[in-house]
């Protein structure tokens, strides 16, 4: 069930009515949300609802065991390690089994062992990377005594809650479980922000991201060698805008939908392409994942507390694993390596830059950072390493047909520019809209929202492509 569909719209109206009618009992309200979340998840594949439930029970149980071993530090650690290992096993099996078996087969062939390994086709459950990371963060927070233990119902709802279930934001227990402890109060401000974010997200996804995907990016990336350098450059910029509009739209809609049910989700994006360094980029892009990787991986690997060499290792390892988190492919590893090495270079530059050298102007920092990110996106989007190289070779004018702009239209160019413009709007534009909306009569806001959705619907291409981050 995709957010920008009528099926989801009808589903949401039912859930909205049922949860607020049941506001007399917080427990019943949560049970309704839980069942609704399972229906939402089961819409893809009912078998994986069981996986979701088992995963929640596993993390809840492991947390109880950590708490019960309060007097024995070694036992607490053992339960933590077991719990995290169980989560990683689930993730590893569904997400990386096929990839590693193919690599193993290739390795054996190189060593002269011609063996056809029986490789099962494993179906990837939607959103598994998100819910296993949420489960692990809960266990680690319990171990570090940074969050209060959650009841089984709350833990299950935390991991299953449908607005963030399949593509984040990664909401931590310390943020959401306290909100589950009482019936939330709906304020006009929250509702206004929720509606504004949903409409805004719908526009970014259904118009900009979908149009760029169908009109330019998918075709060019499908066969980079068949396109001229200008089309390739346009597709690279187009993908940068598409992935931002697609993923940030999902986050906006998830935050908006949760707000209409009375819950507050954290920020996930903050105008990422105006970042003046890669470190700054990661404070602005997929904030819930980057802060997860920082708190649970980078810090665990040593972080900045054991000297510069260890810091550089931690940065690189975090980014490589962050790349692998996105999927079992060498291209994601290369994407992580690009980010990791530039983060390390930035850090070393800060450490060793001659004091007499003046820093670059901010606009140039932004431009350079954006183009490093753009280079990473080519590997992220290309189907294979060979395709990525063909793409880069084509941009440089090697092996590609004559320079042409067969794919790029004025509309697509306008959408690329529009997507970039969002990054230079005032920081709190949407909040200012929300502040105005909440003071207006409900009928006016409702008619306005309905008309805007109508405009978006008239502009969107036929059908709805899944969100890019669903595959992760």
């Amino acid at each position, binding site marked *: 069930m995709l957010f920008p*569909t*009528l099926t989801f719209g009808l589903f949401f109206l039912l859930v909205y009515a049922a949860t*607020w009618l049941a506001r007399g009992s917080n427990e019943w309200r949560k049970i309704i949300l839980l069942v609704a979340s399972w229906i939402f998840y089961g819409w893809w594949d009912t078998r994986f609802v069981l996986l979701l439930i088992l995963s929640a029970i596993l993390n809840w149980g492991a947390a109880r065991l950590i708490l019960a071993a309060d007097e024995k530090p070694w036992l607490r650690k053992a339960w933590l390690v077991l719990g995290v290992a169980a989560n990683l096993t689930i993730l590893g099996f569904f997400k990386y089994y096929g990839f590693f078996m193919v690599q193993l087969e290739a390795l054996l062939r190189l060593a002269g062992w011609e063996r056809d390994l029986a490789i099962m086709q494993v179906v990837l459950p939607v959103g598994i990377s998100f819910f296993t990371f949420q489960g692990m963060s809960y266990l680690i927070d319990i171990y570090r005594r940074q969050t209060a233990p959650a009841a089984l119902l709350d833990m299950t709802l935390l991991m299953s809650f449908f607005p963030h279930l399949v593509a984040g934001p990664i909401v931590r227990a310390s*943020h959401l479980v306290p909100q589950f402890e009482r019936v939330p109060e*709906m*304020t*006009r*401000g*929250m*509702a206004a*922000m*929720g*509606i504004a*974010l949903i409409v805004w997200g719908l526009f970014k996804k259904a118009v900009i991201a979908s*149009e760029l995907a169908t009109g330019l990016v998918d075709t060019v990336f499908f066969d980079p060698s068949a396109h001229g350098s200008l089309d390739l450059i346009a597709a690279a910029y187009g993908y940068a805008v598409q992935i931002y509009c697609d993923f940030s739209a999902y986050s906006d809609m998830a*935050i908006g939908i949760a*707000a209409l049910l009375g819950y*507050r*989700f*954290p*920020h996930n994006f903050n105008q990422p392409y105006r970042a003046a360094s890669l*470190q700054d*980029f*990661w*404070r602005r892009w997929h904030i819930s994942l*980057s802060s997860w*990787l920082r708190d649970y991986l*980078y*810090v665990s690997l040593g*972080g*900045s*507390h054991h000297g510069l060499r260890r810091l550089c290792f931690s940065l690189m390892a*975090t980014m490589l694993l*962050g790349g692998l988190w996105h999927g079992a492919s060498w291209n994601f590893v290369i994407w992580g390596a690009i980010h990791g090495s530039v*983060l390390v270079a930035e850090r070393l530059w800060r450490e060793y830059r001659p004091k007499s050298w003046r820093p670059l102007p901010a606009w140039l920092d932004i431009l350079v950072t954006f183009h490093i990110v753009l280079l990473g996106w080519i590997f992220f989007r290309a189907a294979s390493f060979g395709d990525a190289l063909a793409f880069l070779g084509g941009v440089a004018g090697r092996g590609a047909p004559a320079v042409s*702009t067969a794919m*790029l*239209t*004025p*509309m697509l160019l306008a959408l690329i520019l529009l997507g970039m413009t969002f990054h230079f709007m005032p*920081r*709190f534009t*949407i*909040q200012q809209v*929300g*502040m105005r909306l*909440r003071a207006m009569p*409900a*009928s006016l*806001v*409702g*008619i306005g*929202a*309905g*008309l805007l*959705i*109508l405009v978006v*619907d*008239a*502009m969107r291409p036929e059908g709805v492509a899944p969100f890019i981050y669903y595959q992760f």
Partner: protein
Amino acid sequence: MPRDGSVPDKVIERTPADANGLALSLSPVDLPEPPAPLPNGLRWTTITIAWATLVLLLLNAHALRSWAYQLPPTDLSAKVVTLAESWYDNVDRFGLNRPVEAMHGWWQTAKDHRFREEQPAPADAGRAAG
């Protein structure tokens, strides 16, 4: 990504507010307190959603019809298709399908613009001349 030993949420909480009282908070749905209380949040929200639904029901019947046709074929979905078709015809009688059709047409025209008008291929040109 990793920031050296920093705690982002605390940094965010310390971000100074702008002239409207807006600051980076834990959630984008957090707004500063209004100057005067705005009561009945749930009622306001429900009325807003109801109006938006009504507008879409009246002006977006084609979406309802397309959705109905995409349902898996069952007895129930056949009834849904019939209802959606008759709803489409009813609102069409009042011209309510026209706005979205017009907007869709304008959008398509805008999308069809090219930087350069396409020249006919030589073979086509020869045929045309012949």
